């Protein structure tokens, strides 16, 4: 019989909310949830649905919330949803940064000032110039995202820039390169987070999916640290239910139940993506 490590949920620190479903204004060639303009496999969540999920998680002692999609800023009620959430907990929005109008940024800054909790805006970049970034995201995306980042910074929102780190250069060297490139683009205080590439969704056709050996099958117990992976402290909700983590919202086997209290059981780490998490020790969170 195949054996995989089982990851216990120690406590629900973090709840991911796929507020925009799979709807996105871009359709990136590497999108790990296969999002795009016509993609409605996961519908948007209503403000009421999100409010109920937030209450459910607060009842379990959750520390903070992350909003994803697709593209959260396509949601007509996103500002209100953030306002609801920030009344009781910190919130982070993950965005492609192309839909940050002046009035949205103004609203975000107001929400941030009015709340005791931090509001984090996290913007994804896949390359440090238009050629590299737009190869994944489509022509013109880089220019709009950089403009969005500049406007966020000008408003004092201090965005976090998430950069996909695909090469194998030293993390410190890579960080300095990012900082230098962003500085040249007019960003003076970017906060940088690097993420590995996951072989999920559209990325499986752009390059390839996980190979047979990229697996935690038969991992010796002594090689498994139950306190290292993010799924020991998070769950993700979409309109379709509760999933183990934000990476597996659209993968077979990722859905664990309807209510959060039905998903407290250990999760069998049998997905190829679990291999990437294990090898890199990554977390999708800000830290």
């Amino acid at each position, binding site marked *: 019989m195949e054996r995989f490590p089982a990851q216990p949920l120690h*406590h629900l*620190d973090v709840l991911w909310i796929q507020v925009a479903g799979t709807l996105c204004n871009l359709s990136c060639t590497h999108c790990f949830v296969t999002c795009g303009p016509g993609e409605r496999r996961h519908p948007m969540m209503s403000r009421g649905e999100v409010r109920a999920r937030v209450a459910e*998680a*607060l*009842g*379990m*002692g*959750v*520390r*903070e919330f992350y909003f994803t999609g697709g593209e959260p800023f396509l949601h007509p009620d996103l500002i209100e949803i953030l306002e609801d959430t920030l009344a*009781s*907990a*910190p919130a982070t929005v993950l965005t492609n940064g192309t839909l940050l109008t002046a009035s949205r940024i103004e609203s975000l800054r107001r929400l*941030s000032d009015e709340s*005791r*909790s*931090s*509001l*984090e805006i996290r913007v994804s970049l896949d390359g440090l110039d238009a050629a590299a970034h737009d190869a994944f995201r489509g022509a013109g995306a880089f220019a709009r995202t950089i403009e969005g980042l500049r406007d966020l910074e000008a408003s*004092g*929102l*201090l965005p976090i820039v998430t950069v996909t780190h695909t090469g194998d250069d*030293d*993390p*410190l060297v*890579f*960080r*300095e390169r990012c900082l230098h490139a962003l500085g040249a683009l007019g960003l003076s*205080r970017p*906060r*940088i987070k690097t993420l590995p590439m996951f072989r999920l969704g559209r990325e499986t056709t752009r390059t390839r999916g996980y190979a047979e050996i990229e697996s935690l099958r038969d991992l010796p117990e002594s090689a498994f640290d139950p306190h290292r992976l993010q799924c020991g402290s998070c769950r993700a909700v979409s309109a379709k239910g509760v999933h183990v983590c934000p990476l597996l919202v659209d993968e077979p086997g990722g859905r664990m139940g309807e209510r959060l209290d039905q998903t407290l059981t250990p999760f069998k780490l049998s997905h190829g993506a679990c291999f990437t998490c294990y090898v890199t020790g990554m977390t999708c969170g*800000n*830290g």
Partner: protein
Amino acid sequence: MRLAAFGGIYSNHLALAAVLEDLRQGGSDLAWCLGDLGGFGPHPDRAVAALRSSGIPTLRGNMDDSVGHARGDCDCGYTDPRDNAFAQRSYDYTLAHTSPEHRAWMRDLPECHRLEAGGRRVLLCHGSPRRVNEFLWESACSDAFLEWMCAEHGADLLLCSHTGLHWHRALPSGRHVVNVGTIGRPANDGRTEVWYARVELEDGVRVDFRSVAYDHESLAREMESEALPPEFVETIRTGWWTTCLENLPAKERRAGRF
């Protein structure tokens, strides 16, 4: 009962001396040090010797656990590579300059401590009760989370340190969480003073934070003559964090200069 607590000495023996003097005048019934004796500053043995001779009970922070056991790094819990590079430089210096006798003493320090005062269960820890290097930032913790943590660990009053920024939250249930700050590094507020907490437990909980001035210029010069990173020295002279700040949440980051 008046309880004083400070954390994060980070080898700042001059700030420690000033805090000990402030404590002598402040009339607390009991004082605790919440750990992290070395790192960042110069001549780590000076602060440890002064702390030990003060007799103030002390918790084992992540730094003390690492130095005590001569581990490879300080286990501060940073994720940014630049933060980690700076943390490594100060850790290597600290480990190399801490006497074996002090290191043996650190190994035996408790990780948490419980006491009862004013009818409340008080829990002292370094990062959080569940993890020595957990960062409890004011703007990154919901009430729900802090309530859960207190309930889970049987605390009506939770005292912690590790992050370097002091704050107090009175929770809806009547519980309290206090991050006492650190006395080794200023609080990223453009002031050179350092901070610790005093809690009065009697008909409720009253918390006040004390800012303590010390001869920071002498410390800065000692750090320079020990060839510690100029970025650290700048923080001592200006009160603004220059390193180890990438994991600050947006609100706390915005309050600083860098």
